[in-house]
């Protein structure tokens, strides 16, 4: 008996030492992981001339927010950031709305086409996006010409919002329908018996119950849509209408020599999603857990 306990303790001490070592190892790598980001923040806080005169490893003579002020003034970061919000917020709301509609029908009604519907959306989410660039581009021009306004969808926020919704709604549908399956059918049954019509059943009964899943998804979706920049490169011809992540690519070419100013721009562009992640980390992770995947 006592022998066993001694051995047990020995094992536990051994394990503790090993865990300490593992933790240290992962910690060192965590530092390596975050270092490029910290370095960019550091770069953004010092003036370009400081680096030129004293070298990149010099102790900073000046630390200030001038680069940030200049990023707003010269790079017009504020405009691009606004563009990002104009595109992201409606896209997220529409995506969640449409996704919840399909999920509602598929899980609350027994139609024969339910599985096909789910497949249509989930498989659509996994298609390589490049497959759609040319036709969508031409379709937008064509629809615009049809209505006598070439910029109705092409080079317009509306078009960008539309493609984001089209591409994200599959994931939202998938996540929301698997979440909705956990909501007891009895709730729907009693709503039907009480004589609630379909719309009230959806709006007053199901939607409130979906709140946690919608919260989780909205954080995840905001991040994805905010970060996406290829569609804006394809569909927005006016630079002044581009969201910040797309604009950043052009600015990178234009301000190639002034690292420090560019660093400030990059940090400003990154901050909304980083803040969102830290403030709503729980929702963020819940979103991923619910979906378990994003193709």
């Amino acid at each position, binding site marked *: 008996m006592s022998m066993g306990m001694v051995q047990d303790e020995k094992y536990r001490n051994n394990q503790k030492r090993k865990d300490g070592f593992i933790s240290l190892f992962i910690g060192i790598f965590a530092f390596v992981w975050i270092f490029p980001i910290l370095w960019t923040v550091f770069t953004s806080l010092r003036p370009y001339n400081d680096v030129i005169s004293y070298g990149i490893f010099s102790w900073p003579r000046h630390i200030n927010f001038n680069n940030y002020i200049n990023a707003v003034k010269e790079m017009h970061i504020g405009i691009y950031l606004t563009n990002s919000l104009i595109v992201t917020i409606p896209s997220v709301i529409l995506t969640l709305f449409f996704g919840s509609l399909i999920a509602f*029908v598929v899980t609350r009604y027994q139609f024969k086409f339910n599985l096909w519907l789910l497949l249509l959306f989930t498989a659509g989410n996994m298609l390589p996006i490049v497959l759609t660039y040319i036709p969508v581009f031409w379709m937008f021009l064509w629809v615009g010409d049809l209505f006598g306004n070439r910029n109705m969808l092409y080079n317009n926020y509306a078009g960008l919002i539309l493609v984001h919704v089209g591409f994200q709604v599959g994931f939202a549908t998938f996540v929301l329908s*698997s979440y909705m*399956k956990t909501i007891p059918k009895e709730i729907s049954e009693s709503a039907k018996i009480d004589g609630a019509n379909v719309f009230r059943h959806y709006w007053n009964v199901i939607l409130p119950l979906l709140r946690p899943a919608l919260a989780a998804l909205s954080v995840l979706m905001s991040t994805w849509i905010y*970060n996406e920049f290829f569609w804006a490169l394809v569909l927005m011809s006016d630079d002044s209408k581009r969201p910040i992540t797309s604009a950043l690519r052009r600015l990178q070419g234009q301000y190639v020599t002034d690292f420090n100013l560019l660093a400030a721009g*990059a940090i400003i562009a990154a901050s909304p999603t980083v803040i969102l992640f830290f403030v709503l980390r729980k929702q963020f992770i819940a979103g991923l857990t619910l979906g378990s995947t994003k193709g």
Partner: protein
Amino acid sequence: MKTTVTIPKNRNRRSLSKTDRFTLSAFVGIPSLLQIILLWVPAVVTVILSFTYWDGINIKDIHWAGIQNYKNIFINNPIFYQALKNNGIWLAFFLLIATPLGVLLAYQIDRGIKGHAIYESIYYLPVVLSLAVIGIIWNFMFQPGGFVQGIMGRDLAHALSIWGNPQINTWVILGVASWRHIGYIMLLYLSGLKSVDPALKEAAAIDGATEWQIFRKIILPTMQPVNIIILVITLIESLRAFDLVYIIYGSPTVFPLLNLLVFQNFAGQGISMKGAAYAVILLLLCIIPIITYLRIVFKEDLK
């Protein structure tokens, strides 16, 4: 998670009023129409276009090309095989190194080692950044006058070309890609691990199983569905990888990847629909992982 309660078929259809039927049609119709018009129709159109010649300007100028675009890709076109090779290297690296590292990291963090909460956030941080930002961040590290050059004692005048050096750029690119991929896999796996019964692990630990044994004999088998999903994600991500390389180089010449070739051939200079054909090849490569994924996800519903 998935509970299927059987309701007698057609019961709800009979009890639906006219308004309800209209509402339901709108509920299904509007999102489906959007999905079909923006995704499925363009996908099919691209497949058709891959068999044509078109300069992408006037619809009247579309000519039938048969399989000529594919011939042009497969024959006398070394960049295609280079791209295949690079995608293959990418896949091998992710499968053998990045994904397993993400899984191991998740396992250690799930065990609650010291500092696990902070580590989790740090490793996940790159995943919430846009690739546009990631490109800039890593440029600061490697470009002339950047951090790595500084450490190696290279000033602006004597800078090494890191992005342009074919001997190291592959590894640098894969490293940066992993920087993002590992955190993503970690968080996915972590959410799966949370559902493994902790009593299972404790029992094994008391029996004197080593960490490695617990991981291999208990964790991996119980995580089977998540394992496959992560494998599929790794596969698909590797096949359609390109944004990072596009951000760094802007063209496929230095480090060709399939998706990059699609994008390049779309962007104006196409006298043929070669880009469309590239896109179709990419789709064909992705199709098996996609079907595998759908089969896992809809296992219960398909029955």
